[in-house]
């Protein structure tokens, strides 16, 4: 008899993921799914999928799911949480969805201290639509709509979602994490778990920003992408816990 050394999380369905080779969405999905199972809340979880690469997330998370309009996941999640207060509600959003068209939604869901958890996947580009400039695209970064590199004098600087949301009083937990090696994966998992715990304890709004890659639209191999993230994104988007109302130390 062989011994089971690895099992797919029960928090995920058997539907094959559609993500590109080397994309980190699969890893991030796994962390969220494992967390829901470990916290024993999968059967009261209701997730909200975005518009963007994760648009099909409703097929993958093995719990009740809504598919929202572009940017509106926080509003949809608000409706769900208010209607079913003892549910565990999360949104899973990319940077175009959350930080561009959905800026108002995320700011207000945070301001209301809505008891939901947002997983914010930031890869500095629009993936699904083919590599256009995102609000999080770095200065000088080339995309299909910033072909000469993002020029802040022309279209502004990328903004830092976690830092901004951490200033809002009714947020309970805000962290930025990465998943490019085991050490960071472990930290990311802990942050996601903490975020859901804060929701379950009714502490307020929680968000975990996960720095991610887009080998396809960055035009790099998966390994090169991880290096690029570390060398370019991480300096602009520093990792860390920006808000944690459960710790006396508070923010970073």
């Amino acid at each position, binding site marked *: 008899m062989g011994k089971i050394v690895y099992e797919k999380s029960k928090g995920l369905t058997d539907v094959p993921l559609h993500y590109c080779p080397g994309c980190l969405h699969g890893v991030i999905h796994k962390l969220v799914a494992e967390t829901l199972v470990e916290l024993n809340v*999968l*059967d*009261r*979880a*209701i997730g*909200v999928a975005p518009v963007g690469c994760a*648009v*099909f997330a*409703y*097929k993958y998370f*093995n*719990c*009740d*799911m*809504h*598919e*929202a*309009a572009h940017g*509106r996941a926080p*509003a*949809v*999640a*608000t*409706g*769900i*949480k*208010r*209607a*079913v207060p003892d*549910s*565990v509600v999360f949104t899973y959003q990319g940077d175009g969805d959350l930080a561009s068209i959905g800026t*108002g*939604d995320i700011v*207000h869901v945070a301001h*209301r201290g809505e008891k939901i958890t947002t997983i914010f996947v930031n890869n500095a580009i629009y993936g699904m639509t083919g590599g256009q400039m995102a609000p999080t695209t770095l200065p000088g970064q080339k995309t299909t709509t910033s072909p000469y590199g993002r020029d802040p004098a022309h279209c502004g600087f990328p903004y830092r979602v976690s830092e901004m949301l951490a200033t809002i009083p009714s947020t309970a937990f805000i962290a930025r994490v990465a998943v490019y090696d085991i050490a960071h994966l472990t930290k990311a998992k802990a942050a996601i778990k903490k975020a859901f715990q804060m929701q379950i304890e009714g502490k307020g709004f929680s968000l975990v920003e996960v720095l991610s890659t887009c080998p396809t639209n960055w035009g790099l191999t998966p390994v090169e992408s991880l290096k690029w993230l570390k060398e370019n994104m991480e300096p602009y988007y520093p990792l860390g816990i920006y808000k944690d109302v459960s710790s006396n130390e508070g923010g970073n």
Partner: protein
Amino acid sequence: MGKKILMKGNEAVAEAAIRAGCKYFFGYPITPQNEIPEYMSRELPKRGGVYLQAEAEFAAANMLYGAAGSGVRVMTSSSSPGISLMAEGISYMIGAQLPCVIVNMVRGGPGLGNIAPAQSDYMQAVKGMCHGDVHLIVLAPSSVQEAVDLMYDAFDMADLYRNPVLLLGDGMIGQMMEPVEFKESTNKNLPPKTWATTGTRNSPDGKRRIINSLSIEPEDLENLNIEIQKKYKTIVEKEIRYEEYKMSKDLDIIFASYGTTSRIVKYVIKKLEEEGIKAGLIRPITLWPFPEKIFENWAENSKAKFFLTVEMSAGQMIEDVKLSINGKKPVYFYGRTGGMVPEPKEIIDYAKSLLKK
């Protein structure tokens, strides 16, 4: 039925919604409907519900999407510009087949327009609300009492057909006070919401639920559309409502009008009668589905020289009247726009000038 009380249209609509079992309200302030969210914010917390002010109308529509998807009776209200902002969310709710009730107390447009009563959102309500092959069930009350009665039906219809229902009033219906009586909830035998997302632990079969309007495969999306259109066919067969006022075979004029304007037309008809001119009114109560047959029947079976459509718009419902009559009688139009309310004398003069033609 309870005691008669004098109530503003907006407040009466809100009270009716609560009595009809509405427990959730998401909305954003805009004149001339503010008494609805104000009433809800006062009453819902006392009566086991939740009122939440959204940061914008588009957010409100999407809060509806979430709450409706989780199986509760939910509504919003707004006025013209706000409804335009809700359009996207409404399309998603139609695609995901979610029940909800939306109230539009229409004001003058286009753009910011003004806050006076208007009927210039007819086309938006019945034809062009949002993208896709969509319909909302559109109910048009002409009095505060009728607005109250229709609210109960709106929630039942929404649940029965899993489609948004729009109560199309105007600033006047919202602002005026009339005596109203509230009936208790109709308590119709509606199908249980087994499709709602309440967590798998609450699901009757233990399986997970998905609320979604995305069908990436054309074949799947066409099948969804076929299902929705089949539902719409049933609605057309079962839900058409209208009022016939002083209709008979030997009329000179048949008026077509809805909502507030129809009340002015009724006054016009009495005045014309005093002058020996016989006129009647067909007043659609459901604007969608539109009472086509009744218009067609009267076009075929009446001696009336023409139909005269009266609206507080530049001429919107007249298109449905013409389609229904299909060339069998001439159809004329009289309307005022921008929040101007047509005066009886103007209508009478125009009607008489047409008779001389």
